């Protein structure tokens, strides 16, 4: 009949006597051949080998210089500063970002407008302009006072003492980060099904608890990938503070190659550190995302460790 030959790309098997089926059931299963995949893999391996070979044998990379400076004291201090700026920028930026996101989502028009205005302004002003502004704040206001608005002043400090270069850098990075963080958090919150809040309200769960226990944990699923993007981008973005002569990782390598002229080796020092830190953050991201994926609609794949353990325990079938 036509129907059989119409789509019979596999074997047409006569199982009427059950003999044919028995014979097939006894056969071992092997994966479909994928010649294209093999070819592509071989090609990639050759490219990779060639690249590594070049890295090792080309004297232009100056690996001895690299080794000399990779964990050198001033580089380590600069690395510390980079990490510090990233940590403060992220922590303060996302805390303020949460507040702004909640303002934007509040039903009341004044907080919503102020939140909107904040995001508008701080996404508009280039970070470098903002940093220069905070750094030169002392030029605009040489003393900062705290007191009753329009009334008597209680404390007054020289601006330079309160907002040094480090303070200006943290302030600038955090305020800038907060605008982006606010939008990331807001997008996460509005992606949570409205029924969740409705159910919580119907059960009389207090507003703050609705947010911390039900909405934010679910929002995290969509917040986290974007947040780690921002975090990693900030890690490298901190190099912008070199405009204020702050010695972060990149600035310090510049100082050193300015002295000894070994540009390639020192740029590699910074690059490798950034690669390592980004790698660590990516691993952290993997596990943090898993933590918040519980109860989600996708089943969690095993972690590398679980996969290894499964492979070692000998059940070859479990590893596909």
């Amino acid at each position, binding site marked *: 009949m036509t129907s059989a030959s119409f789509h019979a790309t596999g074997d047409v098997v006569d199982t009427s006597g059950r003999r044919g089926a028995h014979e097939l059931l006894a056969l071992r299963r092997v994966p479909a051949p994928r010649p294209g995949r093999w070819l592509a893999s071989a090609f990639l391996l050759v490219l990779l080998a060639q690249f590594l070979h070049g890295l090792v044998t080309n004297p232009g990379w100056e690996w001895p210089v690299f080794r000399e400076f990779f964990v050198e004291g001033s580089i380590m201090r600069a690395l510390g500063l980079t990490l510090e700026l990233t940590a403060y920028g992220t922590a303060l930026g996302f805390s303020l970002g949460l507040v702004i996101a909640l303002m934007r989502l509040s039903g009341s028009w004044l907080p919503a407008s102020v939140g909107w205005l904040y995001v508008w302004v701080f996404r508009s002003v280039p970070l470098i302009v903002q940093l220069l502004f905070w750094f030169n704040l002392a030029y605009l206001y040489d003393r900062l006072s705290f007191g009753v608005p329009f009334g008597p002043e209680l404390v007054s400090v020289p601006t330079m003492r309160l907002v040094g270069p480090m303070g200006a850098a943290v302030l600038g990075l955090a305020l800038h980060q907060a605008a982006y963080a606010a939008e990331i958090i807001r997008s996460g919150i509005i992606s949570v099904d409205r029924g*969740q809040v409705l*159910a919580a*309200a119907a*059960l*009389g*769960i*207090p507003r703050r608890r609705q947010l911390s226990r*039900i909405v934010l944990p679910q929002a995290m699923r969509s917040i986290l990938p974007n947040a780690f993007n921002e975090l990693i981008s900030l890690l490298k973005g901190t190099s912008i503070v070199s405009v204020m002569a702050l010695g972060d990782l990149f600035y310090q390598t510049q100082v050193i190659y300015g002295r000894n002229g070994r540009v390639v080796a020192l740029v590699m020092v910074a690059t490798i550190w950034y690669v390592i830190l980004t790698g660590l953050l990516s691993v952290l991201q993997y596990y943090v995302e898993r933590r918040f994926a519980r109860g989600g609609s996708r089943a969690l794949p095993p972690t590398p460790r679980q996969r290894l353990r499964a492979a070692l325990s000998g059940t070859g079938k479990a590893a596909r």
Partner: protein
Amino acid sequence: MNTPMVEIVDVHKSYGATSVLKGVDLVVNPGEVTVLIGPSGAGKSTLLRMINHLEKADRGLVLVAGELIGYRRAGKHLRELREREVLRQRTGIGFVFQDFNLFANLTVLDNVAEAPRSAQGRPAKEVYPLARELLERVGLADKADAHPRQLSGGQQQRVAIARALALEPKLLLFDEPTSALDPELVGEVLDVMKSLAATGTTMIVVTHEMGFAREVADQVVFMADGRVVEQGPPQQLLRTPAHERTRAFLNKIL
């Protein structure tokens, strides 16, 4: 006669230009089961949500066990209650949604335990045994540690019922609790609801399960176009409806 469990007086509601409720009056006595039926868009969900102030009435009053819901008298005004007071009122009224709305990030047990802990401030060591007992009652003791998405629709709805019961409410509201379920799962949810009715819980149920209405309802209320058209005991309303509108609707769904 003692205080009704629910008293709805001349409730009106419109969304923009569309008038959804046009003066609804309804009384539900303690221990009674009221089944609310009517065509789509009749305003059944809106009315049900008004009973626990998830929707605000434009005009009219809702009283639960004699207590004015959502407002208090302040001199010449009816002043809306603060959110905290509204939340407190809601803890006395259980609500079961058509699409369950279980908290996706919490386990089944935590779903049931959450409101007694955070809305009523009861200690964990008192709440968790209660939560397990309720799960047992809806036949899901073995699913306590599962997440909602790992359950079937019928199981999820039974958890949602247990969650509503955890506050020990004086009144339970159901908005089409079986409409999102595959036919073979409807029975298990209705069974739980029937057992609740048998224990004398006051319930208002929006449903088109006429078997349930016939078996457990004390009164059936037919709504259309934002009004109560007709109400009465199930035998009378379902067999010999007085209004043409009711007859037409029943012919369509029976």
